[in-house]
């Protein structure tokens, strides 16, 4: 005797395909979400140090929780004015070096050149109008905070990487940025 409650062949196939698509689609979405890192929270004020710790003639190197390296220093003409300049080249992410004799920042990866205020003046960053990033700073009761992207599980807490040293570069009228002494040639 024929059972009228049995689904049709077409109905069964549609239900089966839809079930598989839903089950494995959800599985795939969970996998993709697992692989994709946590979203960056933009605009978190992060504590850096006391304002008094920022020296007159040198830079304080700070690593943000997102992993970016920031140089914080005072302007020579206005010592109370603080600036935070990224030392990451906006082209492809290498670290720029200060070249004292040329009064410029130089990126060794693809020959990007920036003036002392971080403005690109030659190389691929200048072609694309990319300058070194400046981060907002604020003082609150003698404490210094920086507005940087924050990210869970990135590099942990923000931290001061390099205490100021007398041998730092001499920049005119602008914040001092850590000068690299690296001269090693990396080859394979």
């Amino acid at each position, binding site marked *: 005797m024929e059972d009228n409650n049995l689904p049709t062949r077409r109905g069964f196939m549609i239900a089966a395909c839809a079930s598989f698509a839903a089950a494995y689609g959800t599985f795939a979405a969970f996998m993709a979400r697992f*692989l*994709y*890192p*946590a979203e*960056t929270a933009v605009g978190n004020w992060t504590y850096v140090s006391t304002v008094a710790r920022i020296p007159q003639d040198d830079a304080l*190197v700070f*690593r943000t929780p*997102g*992993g*970016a*390296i920031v140089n914080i220093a005072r302007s020579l003409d206005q010592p109370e004015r603080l600036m935070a300049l990224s030392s*990451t080249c906006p*082209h*492809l*992410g*290498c*670290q*720029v*070096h200060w070249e004292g004799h040329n009064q410029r920042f130089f*990126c*060794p*990866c*693809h*020959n990007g050149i920036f003036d002392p205020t971080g403005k690109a003046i030659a*190389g*691929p*960053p200048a*072609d*694309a109008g*990319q300058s070194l990033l400046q981060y907002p700073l604020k003082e609150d009761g003698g404490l210094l905070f920086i507005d940087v*992207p924050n*990210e869970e*599980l*990135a*590099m*942990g807490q923000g931290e001061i*990487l*390099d205490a100021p040293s007398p041998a730092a570069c001499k920049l005119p009228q602008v914040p001092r940025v*850590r000068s*690299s002494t*690296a*001269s*090693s*040639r*990396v*080859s*394979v």
Partner: protein
Amino acid sequence: MIGSWLQERLPIQLDELKELTNEPVPNHLKRWWFALGGTPAYLFVIQIITGLLLAVYYRPSAESAYESVRYITESATFGWYLRGVHRWAATLMVAAVILHQMRVYFTGAYRKPRELNWMVGMCMLICTLTLGFTGYSLVYEQLSYWGATVGANIAGGVPVVGDFIRRLMLGGDAYNVNTLPRFFVIHAAVLPMTMIFLIVVHIGIIRLQGVTEYEFEDDKDDGPEEKAKTFNFFPDHLLTELSLGLSLMVLLSFLATVFPPLLGPPADPLTTPEVIKPEWFFYVAFRWLKLFSGTAAILSMGFVVFVMFTWPFIDASIRKRTRFTEASVWIGIFGVLAIVGLTIWEAVVAH
């Protein structure tokens, strides 16, 4: 006795097996440069074996990766040799893939009906280069760190999806604690599995379509009896491949012993070295990135890769619609000269 026991459990007919493995091979394959396709396959097997052994000691984290590579190189018994073979086999594999692709290109072996296999080959080229890139990222020396940073930011420069890919690669906004394990998984699991799949498809298509047949002057009939146009895969061609495999093992051992891979300075996220160069096979891209702004360089490189992928169809269109039937040869010569020129340029200058 054992034969019949096995026959019952593995009902394989030896005659069928012989026929399957003994396909006649065209005469032109006696030339060594037609064996360049088998060379990277052989080297890939070497890479799997040496890679598995290196993974026994390698620790994929920013804190321990460099030290574990140092241990492999300086302390583990024959570690220096296995790392050397892995490194040199990678270099030779890239070179062999490029030479094989050039041979296929200049002999027009990508033309109808072999367009799809050319595209599979292009996927294998990209896989090979990505294996090289992720491989040297694992050492966690300065080149590893900055190479990974630049590579991820190149991906980030792709319009629309770039930022998504960059964050997926790095596991965050910048190089962080999640990055190295990702590169290790990609290098040691994802890419090798992809490569095995592509090799099976590549060889499968070759077997289905047969090898392109060429006839060179000295293959042509020059005597009273016409020469056979094919020879046996077994044992003739197998002997060629075995000779090649033996030569490669000797060469790899020589290179690993005389020119062992060294360890550069450990990764320093604060300092990009004054002079930094990627592996030789990325010199052309590295120089290109110095010549143009980021987006222009990335888009133009993407365009070149797209043209290479679809070349069989572009070539067919040129041959059909114009009288420049051999345009591919001149375009190929120009392309090779441009790549060699940019590579030499990058090799001889500091910046």
